[in-house]
């Protein structure tokens, strides 16, 4: 199968600018990334904010040079032959405010289509059809400054698809959207991919459910390194041996993640503080270990409000690989 994207030992180091007296600091954003994405694949990059996802997308879209290694998109080296890559790609980022507020939706989309040499009349026909598909044809003549965040993002999504790229990069495309708009966007993405088997889509997200629902394969990335890469099903099967419990409790009264992991047969623990207490996610080798955890709660005067056993998710895979949840990782994070 031919490859749409290929990276080999790809790395990127940022030199951070400080005051003149300070020595220049370096930030390793990507390190030894080896990935292959097949043509026709919907490939997901999953990781917390600051993991290096956006840096990787910037390299693959020719916006940034790698510090080491190489990357190819649609068969061309992104650093040495950007002019061969650019006509064949497009990119949409979540929360972007591209375009001009004084132009209408149709005018903005037409303008961007012209930068790719698309015939004007065909672009206008396509804009109308795509806007209808994404459910905003009635807003075609609305100034983009008058659009809500969700509609503006839908317009950006159409911009990315309008030029019919071979490889499309979606960087957190559903960031900040409401549930309905998210559903529309995901449906649109899948329809676009199904329409032509040669099309490839690379999606970055930190929404686990989005990755599970959409992606053929997922790479889990953290601190610039790819920790695992496989289908969502295969990744989750790694954890099938463990029983996973989700427990909602009253405030933890000093109970730490380490105390939980120190319990026999507790392999992983993640804690998320909530308004009323905490939400724990525990991986147990044997279900019988749950009794010891409950006993620990009793000693600390912690009340169990809710307890569920559930199938593993990609979040559990992340916890398994990194040792803590994505939210905890983001809290300790670094700039992306």
């Amino acid at each position, binding site marked *: 199968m031919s490859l749409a994207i290929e990276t080999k030992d790809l790395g*990127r180091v*940022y*030199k*951070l*600018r400080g005051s003149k007296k300070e020595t220049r600091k370096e930030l390793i954003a990507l390190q030894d990334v080896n990935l292959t994405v097949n043509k026709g694949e919907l490939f997901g990059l999953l990781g917390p904010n600051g993991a290096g996802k956006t*840096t990787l997308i*910037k390299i693959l*879209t*020719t*916006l*940034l*040079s790698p510090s080491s290694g190489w990357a190819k998109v649609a068969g061309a080296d992104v650093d040495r032959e*950007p*002019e061969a890559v*650019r*006509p064949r*790609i*497009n*990119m949409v*980022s979540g929360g*972007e*405010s*591209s*375009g*001009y507020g*004084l*132009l209408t939706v149709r*005018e903005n989309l*037409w*303008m*961007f289509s*012209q*930068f*790719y*040499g*698309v*015939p004007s009349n*065909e672009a206008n*026909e*396509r804009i109308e*059809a*795509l806007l209808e*598909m994404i459910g905003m044809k009635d807003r075609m003549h609305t*100034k983009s400054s008058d659009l809500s965040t969700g509609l503006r993002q839908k317009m950006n999504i159409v911009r990315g*698809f309008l030029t*019919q790229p071979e490889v499309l990069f979606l960087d957190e495309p559903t960031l900040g959207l409401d549930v309905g708009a998210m559903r529309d966007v995901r449906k649109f993405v899948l*329809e*676009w991919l199904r*329409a*032509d088997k040669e099309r490839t889509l690379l999606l970055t997200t930190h929404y686990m459910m989005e990755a599970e629902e959409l992606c053929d394969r997922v790479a889990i990335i953290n601190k610039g390194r790819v920790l695992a890469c496989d289908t969502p099903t295969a990744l989750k099967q790694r954890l099938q041996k463990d029983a996973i419990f989700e427990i909602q409790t009253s405030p933890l009264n000093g109970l730490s993640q380490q105390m939980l992991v120190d319990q026999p047969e507790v392999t992983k623990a993640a804690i998320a503080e909530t308004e009323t207490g905490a939400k724990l996610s525990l991986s147990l080798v044997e279900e019988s270990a749950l009794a010891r955890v409950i006993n620990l709660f009793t000693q600390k005067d912690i009340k169990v409000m809710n307890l569920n056993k559930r199938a593993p998710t990609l979040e559990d895979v992340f916890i398994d690989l990194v040792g803590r949840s994505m939210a905890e990782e983001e809290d300790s994070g670094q*700039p992306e």
Partner: protein
Amino acid sequence: MDNQNSNPLTRPYSHKDIGWRLFLKTIIARSYPRIVGQQRELSWVFFEILLPMFAVCTYVFVYRALNAPEEYIGFVVMGGAMTAFWLNVLWSMSSQLYWEKQQGNLQLYIIAPNSMMAILLGMAVGGIFATLLRAVTVTIFGTLVFSVKFEIVSYLQLFAVFTLTMIALYGMGMMMASAFLLFGREAWHIANLAQEPIFLASGFFFPIKFLPFWVAAGASLLPLTLGMDAMRQLVFSSETSLGFLSVATEIWILAGLSVAFLVVSKYLLAYVEKLAVREGRITESRR
């Protein structure tokens, strides 16, 4: 098959332009927001017509109080009209790439197959046409209110001077756009600092012949200085004696400035684009 072809997700485009056709398409598309979009915000009538007219009125009343020759009123009206171009270049054209970066458009321009030079030219062409509307309005308004009489010496030379002035001025604007992107707020402060002295040195409201020679020569690096001087000589036939240099000399200098500014802006833009990709700090506002 028909069903397949009617699906906008599957139907391929008949072709995609490349080369000079793509270059032209890009210029037209990027000029569109300024030529069409910008006219929708009617506040420009106040900021770009009425405010410059206040300055014009002030100078007209000063000259009339001093019993200056009536041709000076025409000088002032023309200066007021040309002010629109200078302000457009200084505050809109120069800051455009910086603003595009903040909006997230710049990275989309870079990853598109078009030339960045075409994007800049599109901004310039859009700026010229949008500002021309303002300049013409100021001229008509000033002419009617103050009864200015024009005596055109040579339409051909006038067209050549205006065209070269615009090419050189917007070439300089394109150069400044890359510089603003590179230096950010520091360049903004310099532009702010330069605005008023340039009104003086370029002779927006008086003939620069009255300035010390080297001050006028230095100010001639700004295309509007020689452009306005030549146009005044061509539009008010009695004022040839007030010209700084002969019209022919000024046309040659303007042609030289046009080429120089366009070439420098091309190389500066290429340098900025290279820096953007190498250091990643031009397309990212947070680093």
